[in-house]
């Protein structure tokens, strides 16, 4: 069974499971059934995640007992959680807990960091949070761990080296943070996947936005949890001072990376049309930027 059929199975079994519980959850499930995307606002990270997953019928809609899960937050920079350069550690902790509650056999957390990985892992607070929740925290800093894969639908990126933790996992959970990015303007789900590949320089050299779009044709995470709790509004992706960070208190969860990134760009106050990789990914059939065509459930806490 390949990854895609696994994902389909996971989602459809989730649909079956939740439809059975529809009566119980009538207040959160929209009339049309399972949402494509859930947007939560005005809560704490863990609380918002609980609400979002509940709308999907729980993490068990995505993870079957005994599966191996790989969680990929943004741990790219040697910055503390308040600086919002990396995914919120409390959100990572809760995500790992949900994975184990759904029966995951193991949860691996890693990122191919930009700064020195030990510093990023510890100062972001993610290593501690993930380990406390029971996850394995793995280095993404050694080429030994990366294996070459083909990207058949890529326009310029035809093959790439990807971390074996991703390749070995049954379920991949992508956990980006919404933030300003000096080069890509805003970094989100699609851009976050850059951290599972080895040779970033090649992407930059070739055509960054096209590579981001190409890569997402091959790697579609089972679930994307977009952290919009603290948002770095300027001087990204690293940030300069606390004045650059704004407390937005939002969370987006869904399976369609393009749709999620479109919604997140709107929250950020940007125009999705300006983000080149969104339309490029849409053209490659990765997802849709047309939020009106989707069943978006909005929750306020």
């Amino acid at each position, binding site marked *: 069974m390949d990854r895609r059929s696994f994902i389909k199975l996971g989602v459809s079994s989730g649909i079956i499971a939740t439809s059975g519980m529809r009566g119980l959850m009538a207040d959160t499930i929209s009339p049309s059934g399972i949402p494509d995307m859930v*947007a939560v*606002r*005005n809560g704490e990270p863990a609380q918002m995640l609980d609400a979002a997953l509940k709308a999907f019928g729980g993490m068990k809609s995505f993870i079957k007992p005994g599966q191996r899960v790989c969680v990929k937050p943004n741990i790219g920079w*040697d910055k503390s959680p308040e600086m919002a350069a990396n995914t919120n550690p409390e959100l990572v902790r809760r995500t790992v807990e949900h994975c184990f509650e759904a029966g995951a056999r193991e949860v*691996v957390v890693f990122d191919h960091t*930009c*700064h*020195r990985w*030990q*510093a990023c892992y510890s*100062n972001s607070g993610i290593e501690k949070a993930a380990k406390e929740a029971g996850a*394995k925290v*793995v*280095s993404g*800093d*050694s080429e*030994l*761990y990366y294996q070459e894969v083909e990207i058949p639908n890529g326009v310029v990126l035809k093959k790439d080296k990807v971390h*074996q933790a991703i390749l*070995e996992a049954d379920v991949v959970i992508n956990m980006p943070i919404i933030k300003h*990015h*000096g*080069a*890509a303007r805003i970094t989100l789900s699609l851009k976050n996947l850059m951290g599972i590949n080895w040779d*970033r*320089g*090649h992407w*930059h*050299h*070739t*055509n*960054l*936005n096209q590579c981001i779009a190409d890569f997402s044709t091959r790697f579609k995470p089972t679930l994307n949890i977009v952290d919009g709790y603290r*948002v770095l*509004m*300027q*001087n*990204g*992706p*690293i940030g*300069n*001072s606390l*004045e*650059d960070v*704004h407390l*937005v*208190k*939002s969370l987006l969860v869904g399976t369609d990376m393009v749709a999620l990134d*479109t*919604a997140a760009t*709107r*929250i*950020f*106050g940007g125009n999705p049309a*300006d983000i*080149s990789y969104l339309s490029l990914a849409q053209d490659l059939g990765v997802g849709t930027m047309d*939020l009106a065509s989707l069943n*978006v459930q*909005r929750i*306020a806490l």
Partner: protein
Amino acid sequence: MRKLRYVRIVCAALVLLLISGVFFGLPWGQPLVHAQLIPALLRSTGAGWTVSIVLLGALVLSTLIIGRWYCSFLCPFGILQDVISRIARIFKPKHKFKPQPKVTWLHYGVLALLLIPAFMGSVAGIALLDPYSLFGRFINSIFDPFIRELNNLGAWIVSKTGHYWIVPVKIYWPPLWSMILTSSILLLVTAAVIWNGRVFCNTLCPAGAILRFLARFSIFQLRITDTICNRCGSCERECKTGCIDRKAKTIDFSRCVLCFNCAEACHKDGVQFQLNPIWKRNTSRKNNTSSPAKQTPGASASNRDQSSSEQSAPSSQHRRLFLRSGVIVTGLITGAAGYGQGRGQGKGRHGQGRHGDGVPYDHSGFNYWEPLHPTLPPGAVDLDEFQSHCTACQLCVNECPTHALVPGFLQLGILGFQQPVFDFSRAYCEYECNRCTQLCPTGALTPLDLAVKKTTRIGLAHFFKGHCVVHTEGNECGACIEHCPTMAVTGIAYRSDRPELLLPHVNPALCIGCGICQHACPVEPEAIRVNGLTEHETADAKQSKPLENVPDLSEGFPF
């Protein structure tokens, strides 16, 4: 007396482990590193001189009391030679050490030769043979990559079973020349050790030369008790400096490294600490035959032996010689360091001047195809001062968390041979790190607080537009922009037909020359590169503007 050998072995093993540990990030051995003779001598004229003066005073005084204990207890390179010697013994158990010629003037001559570059404001000469720095280079160029390779092999094997508890580390191979040079020196020293023990310490070692001079005058010296000795030669065979003359029943204490092998070898416990005759009062010299057993023989042996009778020549003359020469040697080394320091004041060789906001940034003086000036580690402050202190022990190189520092070949000129410089194609100077500045035992790097280091400009990024992929290929890249920790590199729209293309732009007032932009640049050679400053400067800190148009979700989502 006979137990002292075991005390020495235990202490030496501990010291070797602790000092090696410092090169791998363990803090406990740091005082031992700071107590190394040549580094402490250099540091006494630089940053952190107070501690060094105290340590130096302790070293000199203790040597004046009991001789060259330093060489066997504290010198990592000396201990390493003992380890090699011990291993060689496994293969050749019946090995006997032979008496060595004194070669006093060869040894002092080598020291004098090594001091020549000092007059040009560099310690490159001393650095070449300083035992601590040799040890450091051995750790950095040979031992460290070997250990890392071993670790990664383990990590890879373990990861295949789905476990990640061995964490892989990056292997940064030292430059080939450095590996070849260090391993050849090590091979030569190993050969010498196998041949006849501590040959290096009494012919080439600059620390050895200084201590050798002091040990001549030490108050207590190891001597053979004439009345006990039957010239069996056990001590001579065990003496790894070859300084024992069995027939004359004498120990040349200036060459003795106090390993206590002789004391243990003597079945009759005939090797003892005794008062150096030159410090005896004239009267005691006359009645030497009647002195108590412990103090007798130095002088009584002298009746038969010429070299010993020399030692009991008028003591005041010796004392004067000692004082005079001591002042000269110390003066030479510290003077060299001070000379470089004075030279560096108030001028930079490349004269960049202060890079403030108002200064228009001119990239035109730099040729893309030519190497730029190498970048010195933070805390170096000034090239001349740096060169007059750094003995290239590679402690900062080995401890640099990103491994961006490398031993320089001739980037800093012949006088900067092996001194550390940044290799930004390999890595970058970590923004949240000031480790190297805190570690340096020679005072070449001034300790900087992290906050100070974050605005210390060690170099300045230069952007070569004609080679940037944004310009040449029309590709969106932005690698340098996203990596810059001080917001000195930003993207500016520069083509009206392609508003999405952002061309890097360097704000020199904010740039600290950390090199992460150069490291991230995908072009070969990099289209943004750091030119090292010979005089470090202070950069401005970026002030964030207050946010405008922040997201407000109180009324619901904007989609």
